[in-house]
């Protein structure tokens, strides 16, 4: 379980951080409404990542 949970965590961190970086690069040229939408999705993504990090010790058994 530990290996699988860790693999999943690494996967999530990589892909979520990658889309956060990609979205951050779009902010500068985004129209105001689009920028708000991006910020909302980025905040959701960051929260999901924090939740995954928070959950990990329980999933990995310590």
């Amino acid at each position, binding site marked *: 379980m530990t290996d699988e949970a860790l693999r999943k965590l690494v996967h999530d961190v990589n892909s979520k951080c990658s889309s956060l970086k*990609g*979205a951050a690069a779009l902010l500068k040229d985004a129209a105001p409404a689009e920028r708000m939408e991006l910020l909302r999705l980025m905040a959701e993504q960051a929260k999901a990542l924090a939740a995954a990090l928070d959950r990990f010790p329980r999933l990995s058994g310590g």
Partner: protein
Amino acid sequence: MAKLNILVVEDDALSRKVMAAELKAHAVEFAETAAAARKKLAGGRYDVAFLDLELGPKDDCSGLTLIAPAVARRAYVVVMSGHDSEETVEKAYELGCHDFYSKGLVGESVARVLARFTRHKDLPETEKLFTNRFVTEDPETRAAVLDALKYASSDLPLLILGPSGTGKTSLARVLHEQSGRAGAFVAVNCAAYTEDLLEAELFGYRRGAFTGADGQRKGRLLEADGGTLFLDEIGAMSLSMQSKLLKAIEEKSFYPLGSDKPESSSFRVMSATLEDMPAMVQAGRLRFDFFQRLHGKTVALKPLSRRPADVTALVAHFTRGGRRLSFAAEAKERLLAHPWPGNIRELKRFVDLVTAGHEGRISGEAVELLLVQARAESPKPGGAALSEEQYRYAREHGLSALVDRIVDAAVARCLAENAGKKTKVLAELKVSTRLLYSSLERAGRGGL
């Protein structure tokens, strides 16, 4: 670049936004689930399909199931990867994916993936085959493969000869893909089973056929109906099993264990071995009629040491979508001078070691050290040491049955490689006489 039709299969809303911006010069459609993607693939035509493997928080790589339909629709299939396991990456390539987009990797971008697609699109069909599905730059090997491809769509059996790790299964898969057969490619490693288990695996069984047969199971022969049955390490098959299989191949019909109702299956047979088959016939270990039935067209694959041009081509292939490796001149020389006794499998292990532990330019000294490691390193516990199929088998039949099966397979292979000399098996496998004889007894070869 011309405007492309692109399908992006991605469950994450933010990633879809980012992809939409990165691909704004093209006609892009999105699918959030595997079901939606399947529907789009069935109705649309896409030049490129970007597939996320995990579609949903509890998803178990359902994106993998989209590779085959996307390839069938002639899309350039790109798997988007955060940090997938080696097994997943290999599985994706095995299923026919063309490229990987490693999200977050320095120097990697959607634009680079599309540039690789353009290069791929402009390649002639044979180049695509030799740079993607069966990687070789060796002129003799290319000629042998192209010659075999002429027979891909016929019903003629194909026999692939070559040392272990030279790509026999990959070639069989390519030949199946080019055969136009609608059925599946079903591969069976004959050396991995005892005689009884191989019979159950090939023919299937009904409930109560033997102790432990609690349900019924479809055999591999039936799974291969309309497709290809690939028998690897055919030399490990016992004489009585050869006889049963020969009958099934010729009559296109067979009885599952414990059944009085015949099943019919029409499949094309491909087989592979590292052994000298005529010598096996002479030694009485291979039935002549079975041999005749298997060797319609023969392709021989050379060891990697005799295909030096393939070393660098394969290194590039194994690092696709990941970090590009840079070798110092001396390191390249050492790579080319190495005899690669484990062939492509050893080279793959070497590449894994390099990518995992080396940054920057790789020196000749580092190559030398890693070559020793690649040769000597034993399989990782929980990784290659236990395949998914073995784990399922242990759960179904118990761990000791799996251990017996592994022992029997190792004994059968070692016996075959040593022309049946038991003293050699005892020495090479470092086992007791008792263990050897109990294994032979189980395999019905006690009198050998």
